[in-house]
C-alpha cells in the first residue's frame, strides 16, 4: 500500500495520520498559528508520501477573528451599503442594545460603479469604458491588497462584471468576482460570500504557497467534503472555511462503511461544541447556504448542524430556578472544576461525578481529574448527585434536538440509522441520546480522535460549480436554457478537475428548486439535469420534508449544480488480525459499573452495561440495558440488550 498522510491543523494541535506499508500511525505537533505550515512541515519531517491531504482552520480562524487585509467592495451604484444593511434584521429580538459583528469590508470602503443590469440580464445602464477606467483608477489609489466585485444581477448576465474584472486584473489588482465565486441570486449573500473570499485570499495564498513549495501535490480539504489543489484553493479559499467539520463526517463515513453501516448520523461532541450530520448510502447531505459569525457565506458545504454545548459547557441555575448548560464554556483554562484550577461545574464534572469517566480518569491520558472538586462545584448548584444527572439530561436534550433537526425534520426516520459517536465526549452521551431519539445502534470507532485525518485521506477529488438560473420550468425556453447551463457546467467542472490531473469518475447533479411563487428553495439531487427530473425530485422532497406537495403547480429552478468527482481512494482500513478475546472483565469489583480499558478489547470482545470503556482520547459510557461487542475493524458496536 502506498503511503497516505492526512494532516489536520487545529488551534492547539496539528494532527498527523499515516497509512502505509508499516500500518497506521498517528502523531501530533503543537500548532504554530502565525505560520501554520511550520508545524505541518516539521511534523512531516521530510517524508514525501504518495498522497498528502491537508485540512486546516486557518481560514476559519482568520474569518472569526477578522484577522486579514483591508478588503474593498466594488458594487453597483446605489447599493454601497449592501454589507452593512445585510438583511436588515438583528440577531436577538429582545436586546436593548442590539449588535452585529462587523463585516470584512469596513463601512464606506466601497467603490460604486455606474452600471445596471435588469432581472432579464439586459443592461439598463451600460457600463462605459471611461467608467471602467475611473473605477480602476480609484482602486489603484486606495491601494488595498484585495477587492471584491459584486454587481447586481451578475448571476443573470456577468458581462459587466467580466469586463470590469478584466480591467482590474490587468492593472495588477487581486479581485474576487461574484459570478465566479457564487453565480446565484440574492445580492447580499453573493456579495458577502465574495467579500469573505477576497478577505481570505492573501492569508491562504501565503500559507498554502509555502506548503506547496515543499509538497507540490498537497490536496486541500473543502467544506463540501471534496479535495482540491492548493492553487485552486488559493483562488477560492471561501470554499475551505468549513472543511474541519466536513473531514470529521467523511472519517465517520469511512469507518462505518468499512464496517458495513451506510446510513449513519455522525455525533462529534468536543469541549465547546457538537457537530451532527446525517449521511445516507455513505454520502453526506449538502447545503449551499450558511451563516458564519453573522456573515452570509454561501458555498457548498456538508450539512452539519452545530450545537453550542460540549464537555466544557458551564452549568448554572437561573433566577427562575432552571438549570442552564452552555453556551459559555470553561475552555482550557481554568477548565472544568475537576481540573483543580477553580473552574465552574461543567458537563465533564457531571460525567465524572456520575462515575462515567472510570475509576482514575486522566485528561488526555496524563492529568488526573479531581472528583472532589467536581462534586464541590456541583454542590453550589444543588444536591451534587441530582445536579450531575440533571446536567447530563439537559445537555442530552439539547443534543437530541440537533439529532431530530437533521433526521425527523428532514423526513428521515432515526430508526433506520446508526449513530457514529466521536470527539472527546461523543461516546459518553451516545447511547442515551440514541435511546432518546430512537436510534437502534451506536458505533464508536477504534480511534475516535483521528477521524478527521482519516476523512481526508478517504475523500475524493471534486469540483462543484453552480449556475444561478431563476426560471419557471414551464417557460418556453426552459429546456434549451437548462441544456445550455448543464453543458457549460459539465464542461467547466470536468475541465477544472482534469486541470488538476485527476480523472473524472462521474458528474453529480443537484438543483435548488421551489414552487413558482415560493421564496425558499430546497436542494434536490438529480439523475439528469432535466426539467422533468427536477420537478419530480422537488415534489418528492417537498412531500418528505413538509408533508405535502402540489404536483399540479409549476416548479421554478433557482440554481443548477454540477459536481465532477474523481475516483474514490481505496479505504486504508483493514480488518484487524488479532485473535478473538474473552468477554471483558472490569476491575472495580465493589461497583456495579464495569471499567474496561479499550486496549484490552479486540475483535469479538463483548460487554454488558453498565460499563465504562476508557482510552486516551475518549471515554464510552455503556448504560445498563445496553450491550456491546467489538467488530473486525476494532469498532465498538453498542445496542440495547434484548
Amino acid at each position, binding site marked *: 500500500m502506498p503511503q497516505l498522510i492526512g494532516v489536520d491543523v487545529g488551534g492547539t494541535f496539528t494532527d498527523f495520520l499515516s497509512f502505509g506499508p508499516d500500518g497506521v500511525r498517528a502523531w501530533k505537533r503543537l500548532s504554530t498559528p502565525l505560520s501554520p505550515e511550520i508545524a505541518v512541515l516539521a511534523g512531516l519531517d521530510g517524508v514525501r508520501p504518495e498522497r498528502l491531504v491537508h485540512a486546516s482552520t486557518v481560514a476559519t480562524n482568520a474569518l472569526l477573528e477578522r484577522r486579514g487585509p483591508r478588503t474593498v467592495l466594488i458594487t453597483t451604484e*446605489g*447599493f454601497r*451599503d*449592501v454589507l*452593512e*444593511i445585510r*438583511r*436588515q*434584521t*438583528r440577531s436577538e*429580538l*429582545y*436586546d*436593548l*442594545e*442590539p449588535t*452585529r459583528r462587523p463585516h470584512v469590508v469596513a*463601512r464606506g470602503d466601497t467603490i460604486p460603479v455606474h452600471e445596471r443590469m*435588469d*432581472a432579464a440580464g439586459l443592461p*439598463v445602464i451600460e457600463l462605459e469604458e471611461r467608467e471602467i477606467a475611473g473605477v480602476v483608477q480609484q482602486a489603484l489609489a486606495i491601494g488595498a491588497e484585495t477587492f471584491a466585485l459584486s454587481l*447586481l*444581477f451578475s*448571476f443573470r448576465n456577468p458581462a459587466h462584471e467580466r469586463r470590469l474584472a478584466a480591467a482590474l486584473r490587468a492593472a495588477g489588482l487581486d479581485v474576487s468576482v461574484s459570478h465566479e465565486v457564487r453565480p446565484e441570486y*440574492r*445580492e*447580499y*449573500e453573493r456579495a458577502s460570500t465574495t467579500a469573505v473570499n477576497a478577505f481570505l485570499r492573501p492569508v491562504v495564498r501565503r500559507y498554502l504557497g509555502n506548503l506547496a513549495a515543499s509538497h507540490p501535490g498537497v490536496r486541500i480539504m473543502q467544506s463540501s467534503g471534496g479535495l482540491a489543489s492548493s492553487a485552486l484553493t488559493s483562488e477560492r479559499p471561501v470554499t475551505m472555511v468549513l472543511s474541519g467539520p466536513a473531514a470529521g463526517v467523511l472519517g465517520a463515513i469511512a469507518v462505518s462503511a468499512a464496517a458495513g453501516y451506510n446510513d449513519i448520523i455522525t455525533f462529534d461532541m468536543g469541549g465547546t461544541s457538537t457537530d451532527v450530520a446525517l449521511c445516507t448510502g455513505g454520502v453526506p447531505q449538502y447545503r449551499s447556504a450558511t451563516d458564519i459569525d453573522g456573515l452570509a457565506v454561501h458555498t457548498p458545504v456538508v450539512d452539519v448542524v452545530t450545537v453550542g454545548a460540549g464537555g466544557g459547557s458551564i452549568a448554572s*441555575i*437561573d*433566577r*427562575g*430556578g*432552571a*438549570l442552564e*448548560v452552555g453556551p459559555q464554556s470553561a475552555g482550557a483554562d481554568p477548565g472544568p472544576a475537576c481540573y483543580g484550577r477553580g473552574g465552574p461545574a461543567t458537563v465533564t464534572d457531571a460525567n465524572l461525578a456520575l462515575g462515567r469517566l472510570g475509576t482514575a480518569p486522566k485528561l488526555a491520558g496524563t492529568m488526573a481529574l479531581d472528583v472532589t472538586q467536581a462534586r464541590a462545584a456541583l454542590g453550589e*448548584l*444543588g*444536591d451534587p448527585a*441530582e*445536579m450531575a*444527572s*440533571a*446536567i447530563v*439530561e*439537559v445537555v442530552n*436534550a*439539547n443534543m437530541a*434536538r440537533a439529532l*431530530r433537526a437533521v433526521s425527523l*425534520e428532514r423526513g428521515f426516520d432515526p430508526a433506520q440509522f446508526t449513530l457514529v459517536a466521536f470527539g472527546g465526549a461523543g461516546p459518553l452521551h451516545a447511547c442515551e441520546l440514541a435511546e432518546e431519539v430512537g436510534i437502534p445502534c451506536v458505533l464508536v470507532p477504534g480511534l475516535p480522535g483521528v477521524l478527521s485525518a482519516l476523512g481526508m485521506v478517504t475523500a475524493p477529488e471534486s469540483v462543484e460549480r453552480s449556475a444561478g438560473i*431563476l426560471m419557471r420550468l414551464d417557460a418556453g425556453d426552459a429546456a434549451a436554457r437548462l441544456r445550455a447551463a448543464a453543458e457549460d457546467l459539465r464542461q467547466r467542472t470536468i475541465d477544472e478537475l482534469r486541470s488538476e490531473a485527476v480523472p473524472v469518475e462521474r458528474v453529480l447533479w443537484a438543483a435548488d428548486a421551489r*414552487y413558482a*411563487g*415560493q*421564496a425558499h428553495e430546497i436542494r434536490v439531487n438529480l439523475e439528469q439535469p432535466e426539467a422533468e427530473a427536477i420537478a419530480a425530485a422537488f415534489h418528492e422532497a417537498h412531500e418528505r*420534508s*413538509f408533508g*405535502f406537495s*402540489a404536483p399540479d403547480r409549476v416548479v421554478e429552478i433557482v440554481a443548477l449544480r454540477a459536481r465532477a468527482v474523481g475516483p474514490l481512494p481505496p479505504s486504508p482500513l483493514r480488518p484487524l488480525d488479532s485473535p478473538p478475546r474473552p468477554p471483558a472483565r472490569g476491575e472495580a469489583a465493589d461497583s456495579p459499573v464495569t471499567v474496561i480499558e479499550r486496549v484490552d478489547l479486540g475483535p469479538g470482545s463483548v460487554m454488558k452495561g453498565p460499563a465504562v470503556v476508557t482510552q486516551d482520547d475518549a471515554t464510552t459510557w455503556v448504560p445498563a440495558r445496553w450491550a456491546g461487542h467489538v467488530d473486525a475493524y476494532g469498532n465498538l458496536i453498542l445496542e440495547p440488550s434484548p
Partner: protein
Amino acid sequence: MTSEPGRLAVWNAWLASVAEEMGITLGLTAHSPNIRERRDYSCGVFDAEGRMVAQAAHIPVHLGAMPEAVRAVQALAPWQPGDVAILNDPFLGGTHLPDVSLVAPVFFRGVLVGFVSNRAHHADIGGMSSGSMPVASELIQEGVVIPPLRLVNGGIFNNELFALILRNTRTPDERRGDFEAQLAALRTGEQRLTGLCERYGLAVVRDMMDTLLRYTERLTRAAIEDIPDGEARAEDVLEGPAGELFPIRARVRVSGSEVEVDFAGTSPEQEVSLNAVAAVTRSAVGYCIRCLLPRGAPANEGSAWPITILLPEGSLVHARSGRAVSAGNVETSQRITDVVLAALRQLLPRTIPAASAGTMSNLTFGGRGPGGAPFAYYETIPGGAGAGPSRDGLSGVQTHMTNTANTPVEAIESGFPVRIRRFELREGSGGRGVHRGGDGVVKEVEFIVDANFALIANRYITAPQGVDGGEDALHGQAAIVSQDGTERNLPPLSHGRMHAGATLRIETPGGGGWGPPPSPPMSGP
C-alpha cells in the same frame, strides 16, 4: 426526570422547539416573499385553557397578540380532532387585517392537550388599496374581515369559506399557497406536541406546561424587582396624515415585583388607521419588559402576569370596534414602545438606550403587471437604532416591534414591475453623541408600470430623541420624483397612484444619540 431545575430546562427546550419547528415549516413552504423572505409570522403552542406556553416569534408585535386569537376562537367550542379555526378580525382576536391567524386544537387519544396556532402577514387581504395597508377611515375599507370561523371542520375543508376569502383578495393564488403553508405548519405543531405526549404521557405534558408558565412569571418578577420602586411619566406623539400630532401618554409604576402601566391621557381614537387594538398595546408593553429578562427566557404568557395595563377605552391604544387599525399594529406600537421605554429610562438610568427610528415605514404597492397579472407587494424599511450606554446604535436595522428581513433587490425585480434604484444608508441621520445613533436608509423605487401605492410611516415631523445630551436623529421624509425631476413631498401617511417612470424616494429616521457629542475642534481666527 430527576430534579426541578433539569425539568424546567428540558421542557422549555422541548416546547419551544414545537413552536420553532412550526415556524420552519411555515417559512420554508410559504409563497409570498413577505412571509418567507421577511419572516413576518409567528407560531405558538397553547395549553387546554388557551394559555400560551411557547412561541416562536420573529416579530415582537405578535408576542402578546396571539393569545387573544386562541381565546377568541373558544366561542367555537366544543372542538373535535381535525378542526382548524381562522380569523383576522382585529376586534375578535386579531390585530390588523393582513395578519391572519389559524388555530387548531390538538388531541391525544381523544383528549384535548392544547392548541397550536400561527399568524402570518398576507401581502394582500383586499380592501381599498393593494397590499391592504391603506390610509383608511374605517375598518371595512382595510380588507376582508374574518371573524372566528371553522376553516376545517373535523377534517372536512370548508371550500365555500375559503373561496369567499380568496375572492376578496387581489392575489388569490399567492394567498392559497400561504394558507397551505400555515396549515402545514399546524400539522407539524400537532405532530410534535402529540409526540411529546406519546413519550412522556399527557399528564406530564400538562403539568410541565403549567410549570413553565410559573417559571417565566418568576423570571419576570425577578427582573422587575431589579427596577427601583417608583413612578414615572412619559409622553410622545404620533403624526397623522395632515400633520396632526396625537399624544400617547403613559405612567409606569413599579412596586416590588409588579408593574402597572396606565395610558390615561392618550389621544382619543381617530378616523385614520393609527388606532391600535388592546392586544397590540399589550404586545408593546410586554416587549419593553421582556427586554429586561435574561436571554433564553421562555416566550410564554407567564411574563404578562406581573404586568397590569390600564387602557382608556376608545383611545388610540384601545380602539373600539369598527375603527381603522392597519397602522396601529405597525406605527402606534412603535410609539407605545418609545413612551414606555422613556418612562422606564427615568426609573432605570443608564440602561435604556435613546429612541430608535420609531416607525416601520410600511410600503405597499400593487396593480397589474405588463402581462395583466395582478401583483401586490409589501415591505417595511429599516431605520437607525438608538445609541445606548455601551455602544453606538446599529444602522439600517429593524428596531423594537419588528424584525422583518428585506426582500432582496434581485427577488423584487424578478417578481414585480419595479426597479430599486437605491438602497443604502442615509449618512448622518443618526443623532450624534458619545455613542452615535444608527443611520436610517434611503430607498428609491422606480415603477415600470402604473400602480397604486400606500406609505404608512411616522417620525416625519418629530425626530427620535437623543438621551443624556445626545442629539436627536434626523426625521424621515418621502417624495415622489416624477420623470422630469419634479419632486412632491409626501406626508407620513399617504396613498395614491405612481405613474410608470416615476420614483418613490423614502428616507427613514436614524436613532437618537447617547451622551453629549464630542465638541467640534475650535476653528482658528
